[in-house]
């Protein structure tokens, strides 16, 4: 039986096994498997999407393990919802819940920040001085928004004087909506762009230009506005076929594109954004700007031996993992999942959904001293909103192939209502189920 046939057979079996669970209303996650008995000490740094989902799956599959989650933040933030908040469709609290409600039974949550990782001594130390020895470590710290790299930027002023920044947090996303809405009432120049670093959800800056265009049109002020998208390289998106589609849509919507522009300085009083270009600085006066900061690994990872030593991911401290197993290449007891993983593409919740089961299986295989056959192909997805009510379901892998989940049914590069519904109604519950290890 080929791999594909195996997968189909397994899926059919899952459906068949799921039916009694539905009828009985008891088991929610399909078939339960016999737990692997172990006394391994597993520490997970970070209780975001990747950390919680990993903890849930490990707790489901292991018996007797010590699983410890380390994260100081008590709120859990549903970051894919920020765009909807910044579009004025949801309030800030739509994206906020608590970490504790998603911590699986049998998992210990330590509400302290990880301060030091010693992968040689196999120990994590918290900011309160607690030492946590481990047999296996899962690094799921997420990433750091490096606003300080933009001269003149002040996070406290997001929402003021025409400056927005969707990424900074729920309240900042709501403040960005207020700034964008005020701009859409009058028109003027709106400036968009993205940083030159790896970043989470590279579609989000593109979406926000689309949403600003849509808001202007709904207010009848599109003809009073000029929208400029400053791409950091010569394309709008890393996947060529998607970049071409966005280029055509931007042309259709009248969004002007400049290339090789990287925001390096902002004058919040005079509303001037300065971009670094191959031909020197380009100053753009704006009435509204969506600032997307450079991103890098958090200090606890950057200052550890875990980052890449050379290559494109070394400077920003992304963890050096095997791209298919998420296992660290120099410290085999360490796995890195989610945003902090130094792999091409894929700093999204969808990546987490695909990465976590693979990393968990490799970790359990290591406990059992067997080889895991699971492999992560770089899958990630982005419901690329093109206006309120429509989106394109863009899914791709490491090789820039489109990998549609619903081939022949939902066209990947078509602006569709069904994709919008998936984004607005389906994504959050799927995400929350993922945190519990059930999706």
């Amino acid at each position, binding site marked *: 039986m080929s791999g594909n046939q195996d997968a189909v057979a397994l899926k059919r079996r899952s*459906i068949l096994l799921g039916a009694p669970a539905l009828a009985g209303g008891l088991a929610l996650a399909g078939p339960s498997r016999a737990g692997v008995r172990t006394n391994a000490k597993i520490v997970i740094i970070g209780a975001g999407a990747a950390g919680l989902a990993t903890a849930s799956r490990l707790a489901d599959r292991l018996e007797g393990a010590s699983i410890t989650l380390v994260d100081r933040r008590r709120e859990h933030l549903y970051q894919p919802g920020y765009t909807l908040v910044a579009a004025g469709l949801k309030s800030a609290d739509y994206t906020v819940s608590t970490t504790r409600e998603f911590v699986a039974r049998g998992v210990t949550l330590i509400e302290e920040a990880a301060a030091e990782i010693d992968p040689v001594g196999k120990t994590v130390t918290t900011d309160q001085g607690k030492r946590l020895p481990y047999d296996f470590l899962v690094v799921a710290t997420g990433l750091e928004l490096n606003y300080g790299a933009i001269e003149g930027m002040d996070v406290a002023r997001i929402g003021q004087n025409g400056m927005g920044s969707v990424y900074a947090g729920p309240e900042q996303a709501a403040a960005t909506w207020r700034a964008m809405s005020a701009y859409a009432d009058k028109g003027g120049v709106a400036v968009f762009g993205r940083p030159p670093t790896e970043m989470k959800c590279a579609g989000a800056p593109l979406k926000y230009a689309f949403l600003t265009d849509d808001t202007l049109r709904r207010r009848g002020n599109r003809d009073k506005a000029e929208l400029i998208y400053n791409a950091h390289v010569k394309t709008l998106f890393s996947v060529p076929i998607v970049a071409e589609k966005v280029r055509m849509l931007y042309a259709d919507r009248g969004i002007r594109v400049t290339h090789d522009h990287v925001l390096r300085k902002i004058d919040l009083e005079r509303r001037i954004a300065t971009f670094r270009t191959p031909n020197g600085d380009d100053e753009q006066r704006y009435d509204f700007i969506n600032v997307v900061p450079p991103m890098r690994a958090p200090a606890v990872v950057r200052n550890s031996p875990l980052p890449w030593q050379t290559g494109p991911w070394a400077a920003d401290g992304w963890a050096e993992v095997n791209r298919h197993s998420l296992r660290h290449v120099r410290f085999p007891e360490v796995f890195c999942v989610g945003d902090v993983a130094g792999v091409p593409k894929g700093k999204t919740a969808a990546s987490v959904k695909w990465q976590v089961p693979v990393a968990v299986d490799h970790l359990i295989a290591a406990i059992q001293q067997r080889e895991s056959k699971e492999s992560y192909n770089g899958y990630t997805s982005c419901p690329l909103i093109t206006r309120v009510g429509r989106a394109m379901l863009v899914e791709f892998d490491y090789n820039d192939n489109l990998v549609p989940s619903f081939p022949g049914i939902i066209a990947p590069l078509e602006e569709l209502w069904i994709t919008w519904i998936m984004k607005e109604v389906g994504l959050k519950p799927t995400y929350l189920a993922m945190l519990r290890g059930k999706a």
Partner: protein
Amino acid sequence: MKDLDLGTLLAVFQEMLGWTLWPVIALAVLASLAFLWVVLRDRSLLSRRLVWAEICGLGGGIAAVLIMQAVTHSGFADLGGPIDWLLVVGIFVFGAIGAALGFYALFGLLAGGSRKAA
């Protein structure tokens, strides 16, 4: 979607609807059982009652589509391809059948054992 099985779907709907999931399922099951009970009791589908239930069903179908649009901040202008129209039809049919079935059962229960009542 990875691992899209019934267990996953149920988990997703549980997150979507929270505590209301099981009351909603219970209501749907109760309405279906009431419909079956009324049909078995009357030993046939009564055409007059069925016509009224179908008229209510039309309203239910339209309501389902409009509610979906209201919840998703969207409208008919947002339909972008054939799959969107199929989805609208699906939502309409789902709402229409559900409402028709529910109203037929309700009319039957209100009418008691009388076969003449609508």
